[in-house]
């Protein structure tokens, strides 16, 4: 049902956008005090950012009398949120002052001239020293300036239903050593618990970057290939790893081990997986992000007190157990000030307040984020609140980062197209990989593409 509502929302998007434009211009032109507009996503189970912003708004308004913080929670699935904020930031009359930006998009938006460098503010912010260099670099443009402050980061791994896997004859704790182990466990569940979906790997266009990162890259980075070779500065395609990752999807989807493709291609599927399927015991294994348990906490969208007894976590193995044996990927979101904002100083102050130690900590706990601030990461309250924190933080040594260059969002789109073609049976993995190679050459230029292993 939600997906219909969502598609309708999209169809009416232009109209809604026009309305936003009207309302924002009328409110900011109003009486005496200034208005600070903050845009972020609030969709399905993603309600933690909204709760955080409500809290910071109250603190900020108390500290700055006469200033009103206007929150703009955008109800849109991942891809539509990106589209919407890009459209909003393109015009001075609709641009919010503070925007919630994915590190995946930030380089592209920096290049688009949508964001303001924050260096002059950060240099006088004593807390900035608490952010480690890797976190600082997440939102650094090619000009060396910093455009966003990270709220937290994440890693990715396999969640599994302990009872279902035990019933399938798998010894606990589950620790798969290769892709074959994962598929074998899924097949065992299919045999022992008919009616249960054995495995979820996100795929296809509707789920956007979630498909690319939680689904495809968790596979690809476990092969000997990657998307981008930073030493030769070339994008890698075609490669055996790319085709193999698609083949894994074909095996899983074609073998009936996953959510049926027609249901998987619903933009609301991440919410269905974490909000319904896993708590109801309808899904045995889920390849997903560290934030998923946030939905099950006391303040989450789907409180589930007993989840830590029912659900276990296992690191995602590499293709055949090579390398470090396991793999993870990290992303995360930042807060940034837009280039067209008329209240840049206030915007920066809002971010500094929103991500001070206490606020960072409460947000990281509520949204099951991996803390980026050293003082939060070292805090016992943060370490003890969520039983999975130690596990997901422990994946940091094997984690990889996306080549989040300005072209990356388009590359990600091309990957989603390839995945969807494979899971719907419209293309073979080899053909889809070939089509991807052609699209990639169109995006980054043939000179910047090199073949990987074969």
């Amino acid at each position: 049902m939600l997906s219909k509502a969502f598609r309708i929302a999209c169809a009416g998007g232009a109209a809604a956008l026009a309305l936003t434009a009207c309302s924002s211009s009328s409110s900011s032109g109003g009486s005496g005090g200034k208005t600070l507009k903050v845009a972020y996503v609030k969709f399905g189970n993603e309600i933690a950012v909204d709760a955080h912003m409500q809290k910071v708004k109250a603190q900020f308004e108390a500290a700055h009398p006469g200033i009103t913080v206007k929150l703009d929670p955008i109800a849109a699935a991942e891809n539509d949120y990106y589209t919407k904020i890009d459209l909003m930031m393109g015009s001075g009359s609709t641009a919010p002052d503070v925007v919630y930006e994915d590190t995946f998009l930030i380089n592209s938006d920096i290049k688009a001239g949508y964001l303001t460098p924050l260096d002059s503010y950060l240099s006088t912010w004593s807390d900035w020293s608490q952010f480690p260099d890797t976190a600082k670099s997440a939102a650094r443009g090619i000009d060396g300036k910093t455009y966003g402050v990270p709220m937290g980061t994440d890693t990715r791994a396999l969640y599994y239903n302990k009872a279902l896997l035990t019933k399938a004859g798998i010894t606990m704790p589950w620790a798969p050593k290769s892709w074959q182990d994962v598929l074998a466990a899924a097949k065992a569940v299919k045999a022992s618990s008919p009616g249960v979906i054995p495995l979820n790997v996100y795929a296809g266009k509707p789920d956007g970057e979630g498909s690319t990162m939680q689904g495809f890259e968790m596979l690809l980075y476990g092969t000997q290939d990657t998307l981008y070779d930073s030493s030769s500065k070339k994008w890698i395609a075609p490669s055996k790893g790319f085709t193999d990752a698609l083949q894994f999807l074909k095996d899983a989807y074609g073998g009936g081990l996953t959510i049926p493709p027609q249901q998987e291609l619903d933009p609301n599927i991440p919410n269905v997986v974490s909000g319904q399927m896993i708590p109801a015991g309808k899904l045995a294994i889920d390849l997903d992000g560290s934030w998923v348990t946030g939905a099950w906490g006391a303040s989450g969208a789907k409180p589930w007190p007993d989840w830590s007894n029912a659900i276990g976590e296992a690191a995602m193995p590499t293709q055949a157990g090579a390398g470090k044996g396991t793999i993870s990927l990290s992303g995360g979101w930042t807060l940034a000030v837009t280039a067209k904002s008329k209240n840049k100083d206030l915007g920066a102050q809002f971010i500094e307040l929103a991500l001070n130690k206490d606020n960072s900590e409460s947000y990281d706990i509520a949204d099951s984020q991996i803390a980026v601030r050293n003082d939060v990461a070292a805090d016992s309250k943060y370490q003890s609140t969520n039983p999975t924190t130690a596990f997901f933080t422990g994946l940091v040594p094997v984690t990889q980062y996306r080549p989040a260059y300005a072209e990356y969002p388009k590359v990600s789109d091309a990957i989603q197209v390839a995945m969807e073609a494979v899971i719907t049976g419209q293309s073979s993995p080899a053909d889809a990989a070939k089509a991807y190679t052609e699209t990639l050459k169109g995006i980054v230029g043939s000179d910047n593409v090199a073949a990987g292993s074969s």
Partner: protein
Amino acid sequence: MAPRAQLAGEELAGAVGPIASPRRARAARATRHLPLAPALVMLFLFFLGPVLWSIYSSFTNAALTGEGAQNPQWVGLDNFRRLFSDPNVTNGIWLTVVFVLGSAVIGQNLLGLAIALLMRGRSRWLRGTVGGIVVSAWVLPEVVSALIWYAFLGQNGTLNQIMKAVGMSGQDWLYSSPMLAVIIANTWRGTAFSMLVYNAALDDVPTDVQEAAELDGATGWRRLWSVTLPLIRPAIVTNLMLITLQTLSVFTLIYVMTAGGPGFASATLPVLMYQQAFKFSEVGYGTAISLLLLAIGAVFSFVYVRVLKPEA
């Protein structure tokens, strides 16, 4: 219709003309158009403006994010070159033609004609009931009818529930046969328009011609083919032209029902254009697709005007 009305206006003006002096007539003609000025300005600004802008941006790499957002560059014919080597566009053209032929030319047009013919000479009560039901599908906002069909054909939809109740196994129709699903939905939605056009046209067919043909021993089919259809030919052309152009640009219905998927299996050009411009952020390329859509509309219109030209 419009040109004829205008012509009548000119004739009227001409009839008044000789009484007044030529100069005053010219001045009167100029001031007569003055009240149109605000409307014309609006039309240029909000109708022609976006059209010109979209033609311009189809030659640039305008984008929602990245380099193309800050400084769109003139890329010449790059977008069009890409257009003709992109398999999704070829597929989109094909799907658009199938959609127009299936749901407009065959579905809405023939069904509308059939209903209009069957309703001729029936009781007022029957005409009212049938007409009311058909028109109610047309009155609904597009997004509502799309939702109705989504609910009917979806995985847990009404159709599958009914099939389950009678012991048949359903399937996800929107996934297994997306084009058929959107064609049926669009036929359902648009038939009323054709029916109304043909109802009006058939009312104008003189009964004496029909009776004469009947006396000459023409059968029902023969009368339809040789008498009725030639007489309503102008209405057929108008109707085909209008529903074709309408159907070419159908977006909401398909987007809500299948979002162009699975894969690109129901991505007609409007849906593809939206995806390229707003999902993949390539506004320049998206507008190039919109121009292609314009060209296809022109081809259809040309064919109708040529092939079905009313004999003067």
